[in-house]
């Protein structure tokens, strides 16, 4: 496991993925500072979370805004990169052969790789608020969080932000599972990663089609904004619970397929 973590951490794409997502809050901070925007009314167009309007209220607010900005797509893309690249890139480089001629069952290899991909995804999810907090506090100072539900004390906010990060990381599990499944089917990492991102976009489009009715409620992104409930005075758990459960079938399907495919696969690369 440590071995696999080290293997991934030393990969250039890991560094690029993590540095890229951590840079987003910095870029946003610079943009906000230069444009002087961020407090013009509580709800800006195209912001379903209502958090952009309060971005400059405090460092913690800025962290929340960064989270809101990256959660719908960028985080999912980075997760797709980490999980989709993990097997396919080894296949492309030929190093998968080297791994498979070691006395390690393929199932265990998969488990390690998937666990590490999930860990990296969690790190990516956590880097956004951390970087946002750092950049936001440097730019706008430390203070309580202001949310569409009202203010939250700084200490309490930290707990809430941690919980939100956890929820968002878990909400990306289906992406990891899909990417992982694709990763076992192709020897080109671009195929697995791009394929996953296409699937993410398609699912998000489907979720936006109200005519689909209750079918939409099964889409893994359907509760993508439920984390806002964690900002309410007493947190609202209903959608959150549903969002958490919603990941399980996709996780099982994705990982199950990856396992089924990879343990039987002829490694020709």
């Amino acid at each position: 496991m440590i071995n696999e973590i080290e293997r991934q951490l030393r990969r250039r794409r890991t560094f690029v993925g993590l540095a890229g997502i951590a840079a987003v809050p910095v870029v946003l901070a610079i943009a906000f500072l230069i444009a002087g925007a961020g407090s013009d009314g509580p709800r800006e167009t195209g912001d379903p979370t209502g958090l952009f309007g309060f971005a400059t209220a405090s460092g913690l607010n800025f962290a929340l805004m960064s989270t809101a900005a990256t959660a719908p797509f960028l985080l999912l893309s980075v997760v797709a990169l980490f999980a989709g690249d993990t097997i396919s890139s080894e296949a492309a480089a030929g190093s998968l052969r080297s791994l498979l001629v070691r006395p390690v069952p393929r199932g265990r290899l998969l488990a390690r790789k998937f666990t590490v991909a999930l860990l990296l995804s969690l790190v990516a999810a956590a880097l956004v608020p951390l970087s946002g907090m750092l950049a936001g506090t440097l730019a706008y100072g430390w203070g309580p969080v202001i949310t569409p539900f009202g203010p939250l004390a700084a200490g309490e906010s930290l707990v809430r932000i941690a919980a939100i990060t956890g929820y968002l990381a878990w909400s990306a599990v289906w992406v990891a599972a899909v990417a992982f499944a694709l990763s076992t089917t192709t020897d080109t990492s671009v195929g697995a990663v791009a394929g996953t991102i296409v699937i993410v976009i398609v699912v998000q489009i489907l979720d936006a089609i109200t005519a689909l009715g209750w079918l939409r409620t099964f889409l893994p992104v359907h509760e993508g904004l439920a984390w806002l409930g964690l900002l309410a005075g007493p947190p609202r758990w209903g959608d959150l619970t549903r969002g958490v459960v919603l990941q399980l079938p996709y996780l099982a399907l994705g990982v199950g397929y990856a396992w089924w495919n990879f343990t039987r696969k002829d490694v020709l690369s």
Partner: protein
Amino acid sequence: MLTLLVVYGGVWLLAQWRGPDSGGTAAAASGSIELLTVTVPTSPDDATPIVLDAQLRIPDGVSSDAPAPAVVLLHGFGSDRSSQAARAETLVRRGYVVLAPSARGFGDSQGTIGLADRDREGRDLIALIDALAGRDEVLRDGPDDPRVALVGASYGGGLALIGGALDDRVDAVVAITAWHDLAAALAPNAVGAPASGPLKVGWTSLLFTARTLPSGIDLAAATGASGVGIPVSAERCGRFDPDVCALADRAAVDGRLDAAGAAVLARASLATLPARAVPTLLVQGRDDTLFGVDAALANALALDAVGAPVRVRLAAGGHGAVGTSAATGALATEVDAWLDRWLRAQDGGALAADGVLVHDAAGAVQTLPWPDASRSLGARELGLTLVGAPVGDGSSAAALVQGVLVDGRPVSATLDVATVFTPAGGLPAALTSIPGLGPVGNLAGLAGLSTVVDVPGQHVAFTGQPLDASVLLLGPATLLLDVSAETGESQLFVRLASVAPGGLTTIIGSSFAPVRLPVVSDDPARPTRVGITLPDVVHRLEAGERLRLTIATTDQAYANLRRPGTVRIDVTDARLTLRGPGLTPTVAPDAESADGARVDAASTVAGRASGGLRAVWDQAPLVILLVAALLAASIAAVVVGRVRVARRAPLDPVEVRLARTAAGPPPVVIRGLVKEYADGTRAVDGLDLSVEAGQVVGLLGPNGAGKTTTLRMLLGLITPTAGSVELFGQAMRPGHPVLERVGALVEGPGLVPDLSGRDNLELFWRAGGRPMEESGIEWAMSVADLGSAIDRPVRAYSHGMAQRLAIAQALLGRPELLVLDEPTDGLDPEQIRAMRRLLVRLGAEGHTVLVSSHLLSEVEQTCTHAVVVLGGRIVASGPVSELGARGRTLIIEVDDRERAQVLLSAELGADNVALEGSGLVVTLDRPGRSADVIALLVGAGLRVTTASRRGGLEDAFLQLTGAEA
């Protein structure tokens, strides 16, 4: 690390350069801070003292010689004065003395929480202003009359309005998201009857659950040693006043306010308090579902009636968002301007004109008078600023001046009576809004609640024709309906929405009109005529949009009736009246078949039944989801179980290592191996092979013969179609522990390009789970002979370097069986020689080596045994010496070449004997004839100097594979 420092340091520097204006809150507090305690009586009837906790902040430079005006900051419900710290800081920086108290029952103040009672919380404000009057740092308008403004949001806003009405020393009021009539806000009834409407249970439970929350409410402080707290027996109520607590509980049970409750709330209502002419800024959220636009306009009219300068600022957003924006966001500057104007007589730019201010598309301000001509405003100020909703051309403004009223026409005759039902227990109910967030339809995509959820059978909707021009709705809408209910009691929820051409439905502002009809006709033939007033709205309908009127029996935000029954809504004579400039008569509602609503009585029962079924069906996604989750869990359990089983099977590594010393089963036994691909190609077709310990076996064959496929199956990389592979006597499968004893290089180096050579070796070794000491990594690296390149990333390696590293990788742990696929590929001649020496040495040391190659000389010089593969089968195998003996070309040097040629031509045919160089080249008809040929020549008296077989293995190979030399 340095990069991080530069990046984040850059942000900090930029923030410093941009200055504090771009920031929200500052860390350090300005001026001096003083904690005040103000003692007040519990109530006019109870002189028991209560100590209020307050914080007084004096800006730098303000003293008795240079006094400044004061601002009292009032916090919201469930909070305390600490929530005002950021706001206080900005005001202190603007030079105001700031007094921030915690209201009684909140924070460190004593007493119990009430609902802004004018004789309790109201008098507390007077005492606080008294305290300010005693401070020399505060500017005075007269003896004991400080220059002071009251500023607050929600609960604090209501208190500010009450304070402004009670104390004539107040010079300005800013009431943000405040109520007008608290009873009407919490239990509205749009028919205007004296009876209480349905309770906004969502909001009230949000407000009153504060008593069960640890944050904001300090039970110990309320019931502790201070002696003025509430009795411990009132624990259920926390710090709430027992009367208020009981009122909240009764209302929650009944779903409406009783007379006693209404009386308590009336004491907090501006509606019953004579207004005083104090300049007042009213800030309200257009989507506020607790205290709507109507509350701000009602307050404005009451204040305007007594001549107070009033400005109404309507902002986008709901209750919480607008309150926050007014404290720290964009609206705060407008609040500051209001304070500057009335406390310092400075006219800020934000207060440019009087009247209704509407921004047009270009951002220019248009000034319009109040739309309702009956409400005279005279020359006094009543501003209504609407941001972000452009008005059309000048003709709209002209129409507004006349106060156009547009009457709705009756709906078409095809659907003039709708029957809707109230479900038993009031559930399921329509979901239209979330307390604190506003109408759900306006929260694009929030938590999946992107659209209003109306329950089939419980609502009827009428949608108008698309508008041909943009119109602004301003003020209240009214609706006349004929209603009858089988239970003689009814509760309806009326709301207006706009429908975009794409179908997106947006609830208009806070125009939810809950209607409670405690007594209504139960005779469908003689329905009760009901006049409904929808709350004031400010909303622009764009061209192409349609207006939708929805009448429902339930709403989750309210306490719904629990008795089931049908309600008949007769719209034959219905009239919908909208107010606003530029309205065209096309907004008249046209009938639309409503989901589940049925016209005739016969189908009502069916409609109800299907409604019930649908209610169950609505829950179906959750049920199916749970089933799916269970299924997923069981699949996961099976998978995990199988992985566990697979883990249990492997041999103990100790056992494996012991086996290596004993003379165990042969390293490689392959029987009947077949690999057939999906397209029918047989890469390997019935291959049998056995490699004994200590052998160095060369696997020979042309490209595509099946060598690599065989080696892949040997290592478990691909699954054989048929046949078996045993390594050291163990049946092979992917990742088998016996691979511990095998080192492999298959089809080129498989290295991680981002890692250095050394890291590749280390990570590869550790993946097997054995300690680093057993790896022999130094030896392996010396074999690779990469020098300093071992620490460079592999991506920079040449093919030969990568190949050598891959061989070193295969050598890690000094495996008993070494499987090498084309190991000399990409090596230069010197390295090929070194490779040969290595293989020979490994063989000599007792390692077993299986090496594939298409280079015969290599195999001939290094291998003890050779196997020739062709078309997926073995065509020859054995010791290299024996195989080489199969060569049929003999080179003979003899003293008389010409005679020898004649002799041999007679024996073997002239074609098979040729002169070449100094000797003869003889092609034998079979390998074993070389001795016969030599005997023939010697017997003829010729002197044979040398006789050698040319090419040896190569010759044999070429013959076996049928290729031409």
